[in-house]
């Protein structure tokens, strides 16, 4: 290894205080310099940190955006979510393959360009989309591709770079269609925070509890209760953690929040910090949103300048709090709170067993409150306008408003802030999708519902959602949709536990048998059994919901399966013709069957 490499990496490690838990940042910096984390680099990192080499490999090999092998100078990551495919992604992919001359999943021999697919990048309202050298490009069509590839070959940025200092640097449409009173009302910096520090921390928690606020990630845990548990838990430090890793296909609301009202979020985090007695807050920002990082850092430094972060915040003697942004590196499972904490600690994003819950043992084994971006924004607004005001919106058990990320077959995709309790039919009118055959509520891990349920309400009491709403028009092949979603879970399983690591692959095989028209009634029963095993036996929320695309459509859209089922009692999954095909190809002749002799 070269001396230069050694001293560069040693400096990087030193910059992060030689702290083991900053391994993600160290890895990202090393990769930025050397285009990958080679075994040599990993060795130096391990030595500098005083940890085994295999621990570095363990972490680096987990994340899609970290690579042990050199990749191209330019990397095109084309998002391959269902909505991208519905919007013409495949033609765009073909255009890239033609223009670059290699298939997806490979790098040109001169090391110039890598083409690869990636899971949903939070741009379903402007699909198909791609990350080109980390820069977001949206609404791609095949005609755009030769120009992009040409720029990359010449080492130029792929698109026109907008240079508005006050905005994130990307070609992303905002698509904020409906602004509501909680999240997207005008934000005046410091107002909510000053209201909070005029109360005692207990009173702040009391007000949040009174508001009925529940976690916006989808699970709906009462936020006041979480803050209270965390405050009361013993620990040398307490942490506020914001989950900005929205990875559920079809969701992008946090992107719009982070772009439009970052101050509302940071203020909410600061208030939560005051409430639980934390000195540090961490934003775990998904790697796909790297383009927002610089912009968010600016917002943070402005808040420091204004005395809204740092020491004696908002004039409150002894209240010290600051926020750090931690980048993720492409792993859906890190949206699961315990995986997120592992990732924050610079490890692979594998979930933890619970109990203990993060509120007692979270980040660095200290009490931690992990909250969704939207939830923390609500906390801020509750301080500003009061619990009663908040409670006056929504339903009894789902107070306030909800952000919905709407995509798919509708006239107006984008972000909507609606009151909880909106009826699905009403929602469909709002977004211009009256002819929907199904809606995926809460993304693949949620529930796929058919018109018979369009009279139901969106709220925790009826159909809960983290916010992803994908609309499927009359002509969509829903079995293909189920297939795509199942593939997504196969891609994103962390592999820690057996049912989630293996189960979805088997589910896909069974599903394919049905799609190919060789399924029987017994196969549908088997799909249900296997789905139920995956749901019951998996370790975390990812595995427990990985069979939902199959299970919820079996329940709500049974006709899509029935129409494919024949009358036979049993059709073997083994196909002799298929099994022999390769041999026949090699031998160059058909087999001679016994009865023909």
């Amino acid at each position, binding site marked *: 290894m070269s001396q230069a490499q050694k001293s560069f990496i040693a400096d990087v490690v030193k910059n992060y205080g030689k702290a083991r838990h900053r391994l993600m940042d160290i890895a990202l910096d090393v990769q930025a310099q050397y285009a990958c984390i080679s*075994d040599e680099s990993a*060795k130096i990192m391990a030595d500098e940190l005083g940890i*085994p*080499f*295999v*621990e570095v*490999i*363990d972490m680096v*090999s*987990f994340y899609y955006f970290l690579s042990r092998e050199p990749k191209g100078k330019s990397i095109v990551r084309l998002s391959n979510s269902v909505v991208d495919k519905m919007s013409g992604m495949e033609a765009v992919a073909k255009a890239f393959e033609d223009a670059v001359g290699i298939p997806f999943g490979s790098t040109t021999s001169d090391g110039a360009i890598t083409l690869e697919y990636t899971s949903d990048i939070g741009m379903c309202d402007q699909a198909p989309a791609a990350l080109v050298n980390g820069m977001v490009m949206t609404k791609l069509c095949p005609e755009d591709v030769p120009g992009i590839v040409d720029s990359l070959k010449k080492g130029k940025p792929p698109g026109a770079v907008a240079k508005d200092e006050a905005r994130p640097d990307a070609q992303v449409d905002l698509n904020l269609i409906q602004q509501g009173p909680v999240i997207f009302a005008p934000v005046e910096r410091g107002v909510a925070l000053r209201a909070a520090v005029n109360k005692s921390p207990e009173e702040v928690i009391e007000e949040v509890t009174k508001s009925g606020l529940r976690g916006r990630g989808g699970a709906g845990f009462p936020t006041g209760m979480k803050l209270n548990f965390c405050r009361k838990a013993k620990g040398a430090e307490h942490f506020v953690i914001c989950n900005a890793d929205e990875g559920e296909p079809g969701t992008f609301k946090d992107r719009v929040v982070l772009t439009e009202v970052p101050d509302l979020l940071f203020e909410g985090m600061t208030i939560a910090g005051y409430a639980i007695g934390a000195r540090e807050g961490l934003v775990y920002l998904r790697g796909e949103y790297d383009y927002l990082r610089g912009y968010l850092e600016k917002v943070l430094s402005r808040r420091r300048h204004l005395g809204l972060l740092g020491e004696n915040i908002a004039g409150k003697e002894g209240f010290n709090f600051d926020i750090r942004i931690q980048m993720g590196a492409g*792993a859906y499972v890190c949206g699961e709170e315990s995986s997120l904490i592992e990732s924050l600690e610079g490890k*692979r994003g594998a979930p933890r*067993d619970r*109990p203990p819950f993060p509120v007692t043992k979270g980040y660095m084994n200290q009490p931690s409150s992990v909250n969704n971006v939207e939830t923390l924004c609500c906390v801020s607004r509750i301080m500003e306008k009061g619990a009663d005001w908040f409670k006056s919106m929504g339903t009894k058990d789902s107070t306030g408003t909800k952000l919905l990320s709407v995509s798919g077959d509708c006239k107006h995709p984008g972000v909507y802030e609606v009151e909880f309790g909106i009826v699905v039919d009403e929602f469909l009118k709002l977004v211009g999708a009256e002819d929907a055959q199904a809606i995926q509520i809460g993304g693949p891990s949620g529930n796929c519902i058919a018109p018979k349920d369009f009279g139901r309400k969106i709220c925790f009491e009826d159909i809960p959602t983290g916010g992803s709403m994908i609309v499927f028009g009359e002509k969509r092949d829903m079995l293909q949709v189920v297939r795509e979603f199942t593939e997504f879970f*196969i*891609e*994103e*399983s*962390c*592999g*820690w*536990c*057996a*049912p989630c*690591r*293996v*189960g979805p*692959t*088997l589910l896909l*095989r069974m599903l394919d048998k049905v799609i190919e028209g060789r399924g029987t009634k017994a196969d549908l029963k088997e799909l249900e*059994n*296997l789905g*139920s*095993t995956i749901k*019951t*036996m*998996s*370790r975390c929320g990812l595995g427990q919901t990985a069979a939902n695309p199959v299970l919820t459509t079996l329940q709500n859209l049974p006709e899509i399966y029935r129409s494919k089922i024949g009358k036979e009692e049993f059709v073997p*999954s*083994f196909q002799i013709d298929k099994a022999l095909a390769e041999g026949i190809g090699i031998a160059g002749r058909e087999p001679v069957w016994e009865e023909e002799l």
Partner: protein
Amino acid sequence: MSNGKITIYVDDVEVTTEPGTAIMEACDEAGIYIPRLCYHKDLIPAGHCRVCTIKVNGKPTNACTFPTQEGLVVENNTEEMNEFRRHIIEMLFVEGNHICPYCEKQGNCELQALAYRLGMTAPTYPYLYPKIEVDASHPDVYIDRNRCVLCGRCVRASRDLDGKSVFGFDGRGRQKRIAVNAEHTLSETQLAAADRAAEICPTGSIVIKRTAYSVPYGKRLYDKEPIGSDIEQKAKS
């Protein structure tokens, strides 16, 4: 209850224990066997295999880490849970490339023994036939990832018992494998045949060389009695 002890109810049997003890441990003490694969009494539980999943007050969770509290109602040896467990064992068989009839570990293999105990004859799922290489570079120990169930026992044993961290994980999802603490092969690591990590594998994935057939087939641990019998003996005595 007196002495600060508490009672939980496992399939209607009362089990008395210290509060906070893992359910698995409390049941082991009481002579109730909860099937398990990645668990080992000398290691910190890690919740990989999910075979020990039980229902606690109706909610599925793993017995190896869940702490006892007064009055918990546990469903363990039920048809429902055993069927789920059998599905997981089947998954582990089709996920790898297992060679039971001539495997060195046969009869001592916990995966095979669990399959027998849970009533699996042959997997009903299709084999996935992954392409996996064998590492026999080490003079005294080989690692054959074809037979690995990713229970992570070797990882924990090497790190926590041997203090060596010879093993780790590599990759994710179905591409997840056991990694070794070296750029290439096991021979470059500090692993010794006397290490706990070398003998703690529940299957034939990590095997100490030249020891395999010292006990003939038919006379091995699980040839004599089903897995878990040692624990169940306690209830009888």
